[in-house]
């Protein structure tokens, strides 16, 4: 397997921010195919901004992002739209379309991009909802569901087109520990069954240890990546003291 095939995402010298304010400077990392890759950091450290840049919602200030062999920063708009069909994104709020039922939410991308007959599309939606444990909720509107259910439904929608990469932005934010653990299990299950590459942004340590194969830790102060590697290894052996403390939930008073 050559280098390019192994790494589904390659980010080099990426500088991201909003307007003139730079959040992260010159960061480089890669994501291997079929792994669960976590981006960890404190609040406001630019985790979600990285996802927005990876999915093409924001343009990086400088740097290159290569996803599946294609430079997504310098690609034409039409090509980017096409590329995005290979991504599934789960947003912090779930972001289900509030005027559509759950099955319509999942059916929308399928109707748009696949040639399946309508009946089959709705059956696929049903199967996807079953996969996330929401059988029987096909006709529900998003506002009729709890936060955890909405997240799971959104995950089902993100998986609708069987994407190559799934981006999860704080999947367990706002969930109680049990639902949060259930969601972690679901993420692992999806990764295991479908082999989808998962990039997850979070500051929930339990989630990281439960699901992530590899993790990078970004820092607000130095605007850089402090360390990267397997989370349980970093917990004991990170060269960076802050990372060790962060992963061990230690807070050092200055």
């Amino acid at each position: 397997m050559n280098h390019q095939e192994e790494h589904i995402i390659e980010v080099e010298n990426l500088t991201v921010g909003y307007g003139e304010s730079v959040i992260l400077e010159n960061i480089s990392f890669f994501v291997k195919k079929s792994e669960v890759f976590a981006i960890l950091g404190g609040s406001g450290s630019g985790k979600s901004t990285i996802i927005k840049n990876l999915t093409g919602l924001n343009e990086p200030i400088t740097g290159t992002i290569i996803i599946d062999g294609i430079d997504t920063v310098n690609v034409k708009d039409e090509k980017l739209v096409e590329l995005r069909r290979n991504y599934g994104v789960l947003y912090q709020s779930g972001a289900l379309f509030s005027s559509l039922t759950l099955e319509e939410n999942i059916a929308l991308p399928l109707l748009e991009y696949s040639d399946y007959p309508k009946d089959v599309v709705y059956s696929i939606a049903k199967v996807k909802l079953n996969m996330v444990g929401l059988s029987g909720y096909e006709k529900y509107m998003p506002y009729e569901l709890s936060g955890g259910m909405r997240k799971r439904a959104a995950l089902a929608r993100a998986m609708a087109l069987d994407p190559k990469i799934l981006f999860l932005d704080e999947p367990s934010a706002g969930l109680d520990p049990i639902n949060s653990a259930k969601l972690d299990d679901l993420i692992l299950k999806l990764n295991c069954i479908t082999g989808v590459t998962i990039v997850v942004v979070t500051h929930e340590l339990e989630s990281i240890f439960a699901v992530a194969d590899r993790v990078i830790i970004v820092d607000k102060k130095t605007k850089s990546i402090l360390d990267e590697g397997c989370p349980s290894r970093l917990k004991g052996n990170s060269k960076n003291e802050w990372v060790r403390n962060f992963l061990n939930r230690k807070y050092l008073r200055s």
Partner: protein
Amino acid sequence: MSAQDLTIPEIKIIEKTLFISAFPIIDMNAAVTNNAYNKILHFIKTTQIQNVVIDLAGITQQQQKVIAFLDSSVSLFMKHKIIVDVTNIAPELNSILTELGFVRTSKEVFIRHIKLKSKSIFLTVGEASLKFYEDMRSFLGFVGEICSALFYSVLHPRNIQWKEALYYMDRTGADGVPIVFLVCFLMGCILAYQGSVQMGKFGLSIFVSDLVGLAIIKELSALMVSMVCIGRAGSAFAAEIGTMQVSEEIDAMETMGLRTARFLVIPKVIALAIVMPLLTIVGDVAGILGGTLVGVLKTGVTLQQYYDRTILAVGFQNVMEGVTKSIVFAILIACVGCLRGYEAERDAKGVGKAATSSVVSGVFLIVVADGILTIIFN
């Protein structure tokens, strides 16, 4: 030290220097703070203070009210161009003072950092021009996207979200009939009344029907309908899309590779473009009915005469003129509503602002478009 002094920080003046100290021994509650602040104000007004020394001996990070008082009083001194030195600072206060804009001048003393001068006019104008350029770019980009989405929808009518379009037709059209009828009926009454008064002076009362018929059908019906639709539909579109921005629904659509304009804008444009001409025809009828009521009662013209004159004065072409205008207005209202929604800042206030500005820009655009169309038609 007297009991009186203990109620506020000790504030005294020695040779044009104001000394403020004794913070720690008092509780800086609202009354004490107020007292101290007034005393400082009194000194500033009555004596020629040149500089101020604030002694922070014994103050710790816990005494947040003292730090807040320090911040506000130093701002007050700076406003009056008085130099302030803050002394005896506990090391733990260093970081908070720096964050509040104080700068260390010696080991012991902090002074307030002098704020930057206001921006030069060139910078302000430059920034405003850049912002205008960016706004125009995004507006043109949006118009382009809608045009391409419209073009796509014409080529692939099956892919139009007809269910959504029907929903908007029902909401903006059927629900709007009573208000449109009422507004246009009253407009007809008012026109006929004003017309009969003025024209009656010259014995031209018979022509009231011409005035009402032509004004309503060529101009006012479409204009009134569009005003009602801006209020009912334009602002609703802006708020709806703005809320979708807040809940990241639009981001979700874009990352799915969906052209959001096709899903969110086109059904609304189609719905309004179908419904507004129909509402305009309702408005035409209502306006003429209103005009007839007042015209017949006020001028003594018979119903038959009034009817005959109206038929004579108003042609099919005039009706089509009003209808065409209403289609253009419909597209403008829907597009501006959606554009403002897309531009909404991602909070509750942003959504409110988007709804308001959709109405304001909608009214402006319609008046401009009306002017242009009127010239073209004549």
